[in-house]
C-alpha cells in the first residue's frame, strides 16, 4: 500500500442499525426506568466524578440507546456511585442502580 501522507478519516456520523442495540434492550429489561430519561442533564451537572473526568450520565444513556457507545462507555469507570444524580433526577430514575447494571452487562 502506498503512503500518500494523508489518508481516510473515519466518518463522525453514527450509523444506527437495528439489532445493534441488543444490550440496550437488555438494559431496558433490567432497568425499565432508563427509558424515562429526558436528557435534562441534571445528573451530569451534579456529578462528583464529572469534576475530574468526562463522566456524563446523560451522554452515556444516549450513546447506549443509539447502540454507539464504544467511545462513551469507558466513562462509566469513573463513577464513585455517590448517588447525587439519584437525588437530582427529576424523573426519579435510580441512576446508581442503572450505572451498576451498565457495568454488569456492557463490556469495554
Amino acid at each position: 500500500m502506498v503512503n500518500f501522507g494523508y489518508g481516510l478519516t473515519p466518518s463522525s456520523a453514527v450509523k444506527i442499525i437495528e439489532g445493534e442495540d441488543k444490550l440496550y434492550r437488555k438494559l431496558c429489561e433490567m432497568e425499565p426506568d432508563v427509558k424515562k430519561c429526558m436528557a435534562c442533564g441534571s445528573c451530569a451537572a451534579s456529578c462528583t466524578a464529572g469534576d475530574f473526568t468526562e463522566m456524563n450520565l446523560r451522554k452515556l444513556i444516549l450513546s447506549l440507546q443509539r447502540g454507539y457507545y464504544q467511545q462513551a462507555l469507558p466513562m462509566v469507570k469513573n463513577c464513585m456511585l455517590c448517588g447525587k444524580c439519584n437525588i437530582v433526577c427529576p424523573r426519579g430514575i435510580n441512576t446508581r442502580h442503572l450505572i451498576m447494571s451498565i457495568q454488569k452487562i456492557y463490556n469495554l
Partner: protein
Amino acid sequence: MMHERVFGSFDLFVLPFLVGMVFVLLFCLFGLLRILYQLSREERLKFYASLLNPANIIKNLKDIFFDCLIHVKLWRRNPLLGYMHSSIAFGWFMLIVLGHLETWFYIPERMELIYYPIFFRYFMQVSGTTVGGALFFFLMDFFLLVVLSGIGLAVFKRFRSRALGMKRTTRLTLLDYVALYSLWLIFPLRWIAEGFTAGVAGGSFMTVPINMLLSSFMKNPENITIAWWAYSMALSIFMFSLPFTRYMHIPTEILLIPMRNAGLKVRRHNKGYALAQLYSCPSCGVCIDACPMGLHRRSADATVYMVRQFKRANQARSLEIAEKCLMCQKCSSLCPISIDATELRLAFRSRQKYNILPDFQYLKRYLALSAEDDSAYAQAQNGQTEENSSGNPVMAVVSSIGSKVKSIGQKIMSLGSSSKEQQENIGSEKVLYYAGCMTSLTPVVRESVEKLLKASGVEWSNMDSGRSICCGRPLFLSGKMEQARQLVEANSEIIHNSGASILLVSCAICYRMFKEKYSLEGVRVMHYTEYFNELIKEGRLKVKRSALKYVYHDPCDLGRGCGIYEEPREAIERAGHLVKAGKERKESICCGGSVGSLALSYEERVHITEHSLENLTVNAPDCIVTACPLCLTTYAKQSEIKVEDFAQVLVENLK
C-alpha cells in the same frame, strides 16, 4: 418404692423418637463440620482459641442461657412475647434436664439410652411419697405447665399477634407448619401419656387429675401404649422436620454465640459463619415490623425472607432482596439473635460480577497536582517566585484547594508541637471540615457549619469547598470494596497532608465511613453533632433557648451505625424544646433516602419517607431536625412542617 416397670427397658414406641433424634444429631454434626470446614484457617484458629479462653467460656454460657433459653431481648420488646418464648424454650429445657436428673438419680445405668430420660415415666415406677420423688413429680408437672402455657400463648398469637407486640408475623412454609403443629402437639400428648401412666407410675398436680379423668371412662391398658406412641410420633415428626425448618435455629444458635464471641465476621453470604447466622434465624418476624420497606404493604424483602432465599440459593430473589435494603440496620438492632442482616447483604452484593469495574486512577493525578502545588506554595512563601504554578485554569482550581490545605497544615504544624500536649479542650484544635457530596445539594448545611465554626473562633479549613472526592461509603455499600479502598486512600492522603487533628464531618454517611473504614492516625473523626455539643459545653459556642418544639431524627448511620444518640439531643435541648418521636433512637425509622439501597425505586422511597415523617410528627413539633444532608433533602421534599439541619438550628439560636 421404685422399680422398672418394663422388662428390657425397651418398647417399640420409642423407635420413632430414637430414629428422629439420631437423625437430628447426625444432621447437626454434619452441619457443624461443614461450617467449620468453610471457615478460613485464621477464622478456625481464632474460634478454637476462643473456646479455650475461660472468660469467653463464661460469656458463651451466659449468652446461651440468656439468649437461647430466656430470650431476654424479646422480654424487653414485649413481656408476653418474651414469656411465650422463654416458657417453651426454658420449660422444655428443664423437662429434658429433669428427665435426665431423674434417670441419673434413680437408675444411672440407663443414662446411656438416649430415649430413656424422655420416656422415664413409662419405664419407671417411682413413689411420690419420698421428698425427692414428690419434688421430681412436682417439678416435672410444673415445667410441663409452663410449657403448655407458652404453647397456649403461641396458639393465641396465631390469631392475635398484636397482643404480643407484633403487627405482622412471618409467612411460614409448609414444613414450618408441620414442625409447628407437631411441636404444639408434643406437650399435650406428653401430658396425656404421662396422665395415663400416672396411675401406676405416679404423678403430680398436672398428671394425676388427668389420670383420674381418663381412667373414669377408659379402662383398656392398651391406651397407655397408644398415648406414648402418639407422643413419640409427635417428637419424631418434629425432629425430622427440624433441619428443614426454622427450628434449626435451636441447635445452630448454640454454635453461633461462641462464634460471634470469638469475633468472627461475615465474609461470604452463605458460607461458614454466615451459614451459622442463616440457620440461627428463628423466623420470628421481628424484622418484618422493623423494616421500613414493609410499612405500607406486607414486605417480602424483610431479613427473614432474605435468610430463607439465601438458604435456598435462589439467586434472583436473593439479589433483589439484597439490593433493595436501605441498610438502616433496624432489623439487626432489634433481632433477638442479632443476625448481621446488613453484613449478609453486603457480602451478597460484593459477590456480584461486573464486566466494568470503577477505577479511580485519575485521582492520583489530582493528588499529584495538589502536591506539586504544595511545593509551588512553599516557593512562593520563600519569595522565590510570585507566579502561579501553572497557567492552566484547571491546575489553578486544584492548586487553590491544595494551597489552602497546605497552608493550614503548616500553621498547624508550627503551633501543634508546643500546644498539643496540654490541649484539654477540642476548641483549640485545628479542624478540617469535610462536607461530603450530598451536602452540595443542601448548601444550608455547609453555610451553617461555617457560621458556627466562625462563631466559635476555631481554626479550620475546608477539605472539599472546590471539587471533592466521595468518602467511599456508597461504593462500599454497593459491594465494591476494592474501589472504595481507592477512595479511602485518596482522601486519607488529603487529610494527612492537611495536618489537622480533627476531621469534622457533617454527613452521617461519611462519618460512619471515616470512623469504620479509615485509619487516620493522629486525626480524630468527629461528627458535627459531637463537635458542636462539645463546643457548647466548653462555652465556645453560646446558644439561647428558643420556644420552638423540635423533634430529632436519628440518621441510621449516625444512630444505629455509630451509636450517637445523646450529643445531638443535648445540643438541641439547649436551643429549644425537644419532643419525642413515635419511635426513636435504636428504633428510629429510616428517612427513605438512604444510599444503602441500590434497587429501591423512587415511588417506594416516597412511601417510606411518608411513614417516617408520620412517626416524627406524633408530638406536633414545630420543626424536624436531622443531622444528615440526605435525610434533610429527603424530608424537605415531602414534609409539611419545617425541616432543618442540626447546624442550622444552632445558628438560628446563636447568642
